[in-house]
């Protein structure tokens, strides 16, 4: 992660939070504490620095592209009953993987004909716990119609809604650091990866490593969707650019035959 001068306030605020939380009045005291690796402080520190703000159906033109183009293309070489694997990384508190599940239920008429596996991963263990719990506030649901909220959530009161148990069970969550190959590789290969708005926080070297890991995690012919301001072409030459009416996505080329 690289923080420029404009992010100084953000960095100071997060470090101050951790100093208060660990009762360290001075930075040098906190730094020594962090170095000592006591009480998972390194993990807490990482958690404090990861940004968690998202909502359901964010960038839904990509979801549209998923059901109208990407999956149609993926199933062309599959048989009914075969697995389709979709990875949401980073998944934050679960809005994206659950959005994918709801979108497919609503918009993809073959949702019961394939063994769809949706995996949500994040480096931050706190958000993963929240994601598995599946409780959301009004803001996270603002883009969903009242019908959709009624169909897939139950109201808990106090402007909080919990996603239905079946949907919670349909997404698996795991902790993954995108630049650690030993953590990305065990996730296996996917048909489609959503990796939105995270590579922008990495420096050039980490971004290149992450791109290579993501390439590894794609099946040949599999797709990766980035945030709409991001471009894989500037990061890695490994991928093909695919232009669909709804979105630009990147593809791992089909394996060359000798």
């Amino acid at each position, binding site marked *: 992660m690289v923080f420029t001068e404009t992010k100084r306030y953000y960095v100071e605020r997060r470090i101050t939070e951790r100093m208060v939380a660990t009762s360290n009045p001075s930075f040098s005291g906190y730094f020594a504490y962090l170095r000592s690796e006591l009480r998972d402080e390194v993990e807490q520190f990482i958690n404090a620095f990861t940004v968690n703000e998202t909502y359901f159906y964010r960038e839904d033109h990509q979801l549209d592209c998923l059901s109208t183009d990407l999956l149609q293309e993926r199933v062309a070489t599959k048989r*009914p*009953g075969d697995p389709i694997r979709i990875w949401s990384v980073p998944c934050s508190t679960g809005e994206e993987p659950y959005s994918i599940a709801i979108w497919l239920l609503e918009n993809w008429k073959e*949702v*019961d*004909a394939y*063994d*769809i596996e*949706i995996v949500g991963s994040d480096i931050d263990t706190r958000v993963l716990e929240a994601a598995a719990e599946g409780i959301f506030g009004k803001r996270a649901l603002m883009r969903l119609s009242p019908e959709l909220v009624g*169909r897939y959530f139950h109201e808990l009161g106090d402007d909080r809604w919990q996603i239905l148990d*079946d949907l919670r069970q349909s997404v698996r969550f795991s902790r993954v650091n995108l630049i650690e190959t030993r953590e990305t590789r065990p996730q296996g290969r996917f048909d489609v990866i959503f990796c939105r708005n995270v590579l922008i926080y990495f420096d050039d070297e980490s971004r290149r490593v992450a791109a290579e890991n993501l390439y590894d995690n794609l099946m040949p012919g599999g797709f990766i969707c980035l945030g709409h301001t991001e471009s894989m072409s500037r990061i890695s030459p490994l991928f093909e650019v695919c232009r669909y009416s709804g979105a630009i996505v990147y593809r791992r080329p089909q394996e060359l035959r000798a």
Partner: protein
Amino acid sequence: MTQNAGKRILIVDDAALVRTYYRTALEQSGFLVEEALNGLEALEKLLMQTFDLAIVDINMPHMDGITFVRTLRSKELPVSGVPVLITSTEAGPQDAAAARSAGANFYLVKPVRQETLAEYAAIFCGAPR
């Protein structure tokens, strides 16, 4: 829709996403829906509650759909006659024949459109074996 009101359907599938897909389709058509994750769980539910129809996936762990319907039909129980629709991703004749000889009322090939599912559910709810 009103003719379906109060009719109870048991969805049996190990995939949570599929159960949700079928549940939303059936609930929108006025049915009451319960779920089970495999044939064994479905048998337990059928013994404890009354259902008008079971919609059962063929391919499940612990007890598959064919074994489920055969077991159900072989017992002399009040629930042994509940109508069963088998769903499968196999379009070939083998599974369909196996489903029929085990005692299923009908065989649906996945993908099943939500409207189709609701239509067949209405037809087979409470149908004689």
